[in-house]
């Protein structure tokens, strides 16, 4: 059955500010419960919020990085609902005049380079954390340290077409936020949270597409969970559609909506003739399934109210320009530049960019010193990243500087040493923070550069391997490899492989072909 997935993500990221959004309390993960609180974030009577300018600045930077329009006037609204983790029983958020809207993000997805629309990016205060007694009967505990910490909400358009693309979108947001030091985006710590909306447009006979009811998936605790949950939910919706369409579900004749070049009609409840309301589902990580919790028959009414305690924010265009100028090169531009300037593949550019600006800078310096961007990229992607991942060290802590890595690449090319030898030298350099030649010396690696010396070794090897020589002479050209292996063993890999190759072929020619062992 022909179908398209329609996915939109609502992402919340916590901002890396020193203090909370509307009070002076510390904004820090892992403090003792309720230790980072004050009358303002506890919602005591009479106290008033005062906006943290730094939080607003970070939010605007994020919005600019997401290519949003920034209106010059934005205000705060109260979202009213009762919950014990919300001491005022309203959340200060932004409703009809958010600080930004209409942006987009370019993502390297399995479907290629894709542009995902951003509906809006706004700032709001976070709620506290509730701990429920697992036994059931006991009291619930409230920790208000997180209450009032700045939270950025990024709402995408339903432009995402695949679970893998959703993951790529999240990775790109995380990269942006980390690069700009807006958020550390640790999903485990909750500094990045994601809810996913998904439905399926299934082709129906008359050329139209039937849209299944939208399901919002919550409780997604990792990027992998987002991808898995979307995959599961898509197939669940397709299965449900196949089961119900033409029976409980139908599409009504009428005006279809156009979406992504398709004509789309929502499925209706056949009995009531009503569209089926959006539902909420929880992702069960252990069972690998989504569990539909409730359908939102009545949309929650948050009774939005402009917050009279906070003055609207008027944005100065000059300040906005300054913020824009502070962004620097963003990942998408970086990827394009790496491909254009260094002839890297999209994959290589993607891997390097994904590691952050510091690594890209490291690469560029390595490439320049080495005079070979491709080799530089290979060494960094295949070797350096592994070291970083395994040692959990940061690039700055590494004793191996890009100039030295470039030097190693040059040295290997000059000496013709093989990759394995190169890796030994690399390891030594990493360990001691020394240059390639010194490391090679310490390892006792001396390149056998003298051709006459090498020719002697080759002749000895030929003499010692009559079987291989005979095979070679009988047309089995591969047999030369065995002799080459013997030579490399003899030279402990310190001979230039192309010289060995040349000398071996020359010496083999000299051996008479009718010679019998």
């Amino acid at each position: 059955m022909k179908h398209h997935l329609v996915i939109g993500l609502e992402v919340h990221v916590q901002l890396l500010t020193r203090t909370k959004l509307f009070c002076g309390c510390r904004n820090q993960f892992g403090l003792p419960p309720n230790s980072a609180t004050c009358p303002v974030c506890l919602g005591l009577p009479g106290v008033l919020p005062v906006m943290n300018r730094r939080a607003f600045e970070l939010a605007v930077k994020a919005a600019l990085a997401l290519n949003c329009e920034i209106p010059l006037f934005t205000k705060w609204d109260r979202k009213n609902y009762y919950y014990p983790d919300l001491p005022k029983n309203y959340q200060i958020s932004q409703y009809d005049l958010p600080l930004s809207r209409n942006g987009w993000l370019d993502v390297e997805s399995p479907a290629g380079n894709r542009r995902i629309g951003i509906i809006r990016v706004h700032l709001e205060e976070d709620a506290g954390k509730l701990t429920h007694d697992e036994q059931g009967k006991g009291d619930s505990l409230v920790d208000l340290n997180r209450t009032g910490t700045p939270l950025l909400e990024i709402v995408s358009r339903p432009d995402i077409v695949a679970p893998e693309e959703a993951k790529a979108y999240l990775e790109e947001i995380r990269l942006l936020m980390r690069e700009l030091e807006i958020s550390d985006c640790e999903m485990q710590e909750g500094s990045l949270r994601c809810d996913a909306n998904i439905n399926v447009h299934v082709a129906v006979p008359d050329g139209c597409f039937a849209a299944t009811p939208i399901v919002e998936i919550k409780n997604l605790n990792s990027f992998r969970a987002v991808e898995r949950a979307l995959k599961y939910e898509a197939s669940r919706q397709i299965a449900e559609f196949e089961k119900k369409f033409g029976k409980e579900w139908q599409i009504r004749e009428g005006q279809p909506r156009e979406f992504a070049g398709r004509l789309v009609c929502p499925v209706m409840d056949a009995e009531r003739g009503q569209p089926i309301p959006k539902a909420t589902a929880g992702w069960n990580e252990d069972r690998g399934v989504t569990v539909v919790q409730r359908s939102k028959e009545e949309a929650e009414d948050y009774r939005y109210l402009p917050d009279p305690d906070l003055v609207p924010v008027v944005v100065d265009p000059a300040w906005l320009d300054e913020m824009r100028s502070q962004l620097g090169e963003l990942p998408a531009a970086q990827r394009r530049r790496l491909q254009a300037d260094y002839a890297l593949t999209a994959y290589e550019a993607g891997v390097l960019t994904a590691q952050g600006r510091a690594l890209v800078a490291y690469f560029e310096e390595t490439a320049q010193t080495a005079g070979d961007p491709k080799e530089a990229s290979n060494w960094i992607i295949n070797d350096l990243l592994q070291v970083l991942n395994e040692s959990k060290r940061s690039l700055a802590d590494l004793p191996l500087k890009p100039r030295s890595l470039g030097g190693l690449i040059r040295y290997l090319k000059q000496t013709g040493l093989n990759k394995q030898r190169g890796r030994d030298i690399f390891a030594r350099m990493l360990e001691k923070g020394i240059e390639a030649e010194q490391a090679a010396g310490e390892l006792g690696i001396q390149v056998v550069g003298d051709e006459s010396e090498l020719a002697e070794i080759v002749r000895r090897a030929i003499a010692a391997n009559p079987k291989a020589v005979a095979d070679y002479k009988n047309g089995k050209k591969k047999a030369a490899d065995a002799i080459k292996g013997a030579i490399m063993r003899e030279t402990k890999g310190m001979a230039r492989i192309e010289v060995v190759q040349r000398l071996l072929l020359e010496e083999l020619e000299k051996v008479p072909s009718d010679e019998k062992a």
Partner: protein
Amino acid sequence: MAEQQFSDPRNPNSSSSDESLGEWPASVLAEHIRDGRLKAEEVAEYFLSKVRQRDASIRAFLRIDEEAVLRQARQIDLRRQQGEPIGPLAGLPVAVKDNICVGGEQTTCASRILEGFVPPYDAGVITRLKDAGAVLFGKTNMDEFAMGSSTENSAYFKTVNPWDRRCIPGGSSGGSAAAVASGQVPLALGTDTGGSIRQPASHCGVVGMKPTYGRVSRYGLVAFASSLDQIGPIARNVRDCALLLQVLAGHDERDSTSIDRPAEDFCDRLEEPFESLTIGVPREYFAEGLDAEVEQAIREAIAVFKDQGAQVKDLSLPHSPYGVAVYYLVATAEASSNLARYDGVHYGRRAEQYEDLIDMVCQSRGQGFGAEVKRRIMLGTYALSAGYRDAYYLKAMQVRRRIRDDFCRAFSECDVIVGPVAPTPAFLIGEKVDDPLAMYLSDIYTNPANLAGIPALSLPCGFTTAGLPIGLHLQAAPFAEETLLRVARAFERATTWHERRPSFPDATES
């Protein structure tokens, strides 16, 4: 100088007794304390004795800690003796409405739901009062959460009007106005969301002022309707009102709606005559519902201005008749959100028995709030609900802008707008408790100033034949408090209404 009218209690030739201390303007008391002729402790003792004598019948105070009052007063005396600077209000008792937080002291907003709540912080105005050397003099009764016009909505007890104890003192700052009117304290803080300073000031025959929105910090004021609430002074005369406002006014970085603009000197030019003065009289103010005696007093007040050479300008505030409707949408909408925090979860009163979380919140709020507060929460919740928000809340916000524009136009033609504070004098206790709409209409003249954010003041301009005070309402352009006070003082100089005092049995005893 005004103070020469008053006798010095230290002068053996003076006719004064201790009793006369209560007749002194606060400004004179302050000067005497500053130059050592009078001790702050004596002043405190005097007013505490008045509280002991009078408050059993007036019931203006919810709580007053005599020891704490005397301690503060002695501290002032000590500082003076040691030659330390003491502030402009040094030794002056100031009563505080119970919706203003005083650190370490119970603040209940006259509600059961905040019974026992002790804020760990001082409101911005309390810090200013302390810095100015004022003696915090108890917490006064009010309508619960400042919602009401009679102080009958206090969860604790009713305050009576010192001029006629069968009548209400007005509200919601009824305790503060009655305390000042009955001579129990020379100065008090009120709060005004829709007339809650001016209407009780009018009913009690004292001077009460709502400053421009943003003039005085709201930090530590328990919010009713945040975009309308302002703290202001209540005093026995205009100069004292100015003196207190001078201390209250000013920027507070903890309240982002407080205006960062230095306050002018409100006392300096108070006696200065006007070169020219134009009084605006909106025709909408003399419509149906205005009590004949009140109308008469206002017309006579206008004549007083005219006699002093003021121009009288007939003008129109076409949207003012919608003021009450707009006010009760905006104020209740904000209140429904502001009061959501009283849920029994984190502080304040929690119901003793409940089944689950939702039940706990419902029971706590159900038991903790009084009928009027519940009514307004429901009204506001309704006005903000999906499907009604546009028709009610947003429409009200549009009309609010029109009301503000009306004033803006009017103030291009006149310096102050003159009119009645309330359509009737103080009514009987119980008269309107079952008719919320009639109660709401008693704010008809005062609501628009809050909606427009402009400063407004009430001062005595007459008495009914039954002996109840009538207040004159003066309104001015934003931040024109200085003009407002000068005009009020000019009226006060020309009249003697402010000199009248309600009678007390204890006055004849001495």
